[in-house]
């Protein structure tokens, strides 16, 4: 069963908010991914999102595009990402893992086989950016049956009707995209988030994470007051890109600890 709901319940009991960092599997190289995952958990991540590299990351900004390209140069495929999660689970049985990516690599593996593998290796949730609920009843059915949570994006432009659609299939948490644009863009609007989150809660009982455009501790703190979890992707991936391999883990840990501290102060 998914570890996501119990994680949010525990946080709620002690009045905490979730910190959800994102890294791309295989970036900067496949040997470092599992170590980076452990480092994220130790630095205070409540849930870890792992990007599955794809050749055509349509919803991503340049930072995550480049991370995907670096991973693909190492030949990292979906089955490798699942193996990395399996390896992570040998020493961390608790931190929820969410795979985030595009549908086609899963299509190529087959949704049922993918769902079975997710359950085997300990993947808790799957966010397929380009598969909306309307197109994917069968796909998400496989995830449900194997106890894997389908995670969905909601946007500032999402209609109430569509929020209702998403509410029917979503599990774990929903991910509110805090701006109009791609991942890593920089024009996040706190007042819109403050309005939109209570509105979404009228339709969806799940915890709400907010992401796309959270670039520093101050923003993370401010955003965390408005929702249940903060997703930080491009900023961490940028740190990975800017660090050489000897110090990449140290630098990522320092950044995640800063974010953790900021959110705890909220």
């Amino acid at each position: 069963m998914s570890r996501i709901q119990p994680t949010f319940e525990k946080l709620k009991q002690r009045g905490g908010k979730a910190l959800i960092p994102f890294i791309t599997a295989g970036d900067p190289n496949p040997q470092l991914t599992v170590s980076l995952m452990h480092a994220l958990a130790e630095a205070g991540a409540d849930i870890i999102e792992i990007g599955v590299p794809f050749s055509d990351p349509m919803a991503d900004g340049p930072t995550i595009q480049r991370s995907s390209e670096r991973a693909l140069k190492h030949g990292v495929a979906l089955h490798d990402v699942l193996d990395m999660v399996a390896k992570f689970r040998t020493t961390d049985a608790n931190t929820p893992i969410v795979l985030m990516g595009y549908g086609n690599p899963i299509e190529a593996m087959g949704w049922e086989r993918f769902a079975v593998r997710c359950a085997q290796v300990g993947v808790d949730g799957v966010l397929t950016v380009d598969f909306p609920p309307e197109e994917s009843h069968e796909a998400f059915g496989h995830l449900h049956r194997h106890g894997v949570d389908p995670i969905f994006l909601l946007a500032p432009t999402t209609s109430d009707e569509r929020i209702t659609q998403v509410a029917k299939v979503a599990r774990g948490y929903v991910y509110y995209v805090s701006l109009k644009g791609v991942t890593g863009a920089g024009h996040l609007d706190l007042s819109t988030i403050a309005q939109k989150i209570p509105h979404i809660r009228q339709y969806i009982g799940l915890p709400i994470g907010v992401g796309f455009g959270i670039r520093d501790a101050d923003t993370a703190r401010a955003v965390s007051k408005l929702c249940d979890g903060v997703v930080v992707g491009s900023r961490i991936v940028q740190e990975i890109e800017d660090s050489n391999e000897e110090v990449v883990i140290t630098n990522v840990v320092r950044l995640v600890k800063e974010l953790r501290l900021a959110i705890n102060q909220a």
Partner: protein
Amino acid sequence: MRLRKLAYNYPDSTGHFGPYGGIYVAETLMGALDELRAAYEHYSVDPEFKAEFAYELKHYVGRPSPIYHARHWSQKLGGAQIYLKREDLNHTGAHKVNNTVGQALLAKRMGKPRVIAETGAGQHGVATATVAARYGMECVVYMGAEDVKRQATNVYRMKLLGATVVPVESGSKTLKDALNEAMRDWVTNIENTFYIIGTVAGPHPYPMMVRDFNSVVSKECVVQMPELAGRQPDAVIACVGGGSNAMGIFHSYIEVPGVQLIGVEAAGSGLASGQHAAALTAGKPGVLHGNRTYLLQDGNGQIIETHSISAGLDYPGVGPEHAWLKDSGRAQYVAIEDSEALQAFHDLCHYEGIIPALESSHALAYAAKIAPTMGHDKVLLVNLSGRGDKDMATVARVSGIEL
């Protein structure tokens, strides 16, 4: 003469052609697609919109384009009679402008002052820059950095027309990456921007809308063929990259029994070489750029790079309606190699005094392949989708000539 018709009513209300098509995009684009769908549903049946579209096609594009009986070439081939639908005679030199006029008129009515487009060889970019100038819109064209280098003349043409050309450095730096980048622009600038997609791919309603705007081609053919040849053709042949010229010339014929529909993909250096762009012939169904269709991909679902002498066919996917026409058996899809297309290119220059686009040369090459196997009373209709002026440098280079 009334045509006997088969029933065909695709896509369904959610944009599906059988299992293909649909709307596979991030949530951030859903609102914009809803808005576009509603606008297209409204204006596509609006008499004033239809009248303005028809007026623009007649007076700005130069429609109807003629059909030409390639007598000399047919005689040399010694079999079926080949007729050419002369889309190369349109303003801007290809069928692409039919669609950009339609989408720009829609953008105007939706109150979007800025249009964006993706382009490979630059033809769709030029057609978009052209209509943006015509209707006074800001225009940004995304083009793979590799293509910018290879297609300098078209880049200059777009700039002359007032467009900004943005070289795309991500991924394989070609058409598919330009499309990704245009989508990213759209999602960021949704309020004031209309994305003019250049082919019958992308999320619903694009495959339907682009087909509808290009279907003026087959609507004309259905009237022109009886006038010129005394009857409808035995087969309609068109090249297929994304597939917009083919959908345009197929559409009115889908419901006409006895007319074979043949789509011709780019086999590049040969299907066995792996260096090709034949998604329907050699690909597998998957999801890319907002729709489910046949794709060239590796075993892990990553999209692979394509190869064709013709930049306009150099795309790893294909419009979802073609995927459905293939599976349902209504159309057949074949592939033609670079060398065969080049031969047809030279033959049409030589025998008919027409310089065809390298894209269209693939359709011509297939016609040349089957014509000799057919009787003199048989009729082939080929979509001459564009003129070859843009391909001078490429053809010269293959012949070892630097211009």
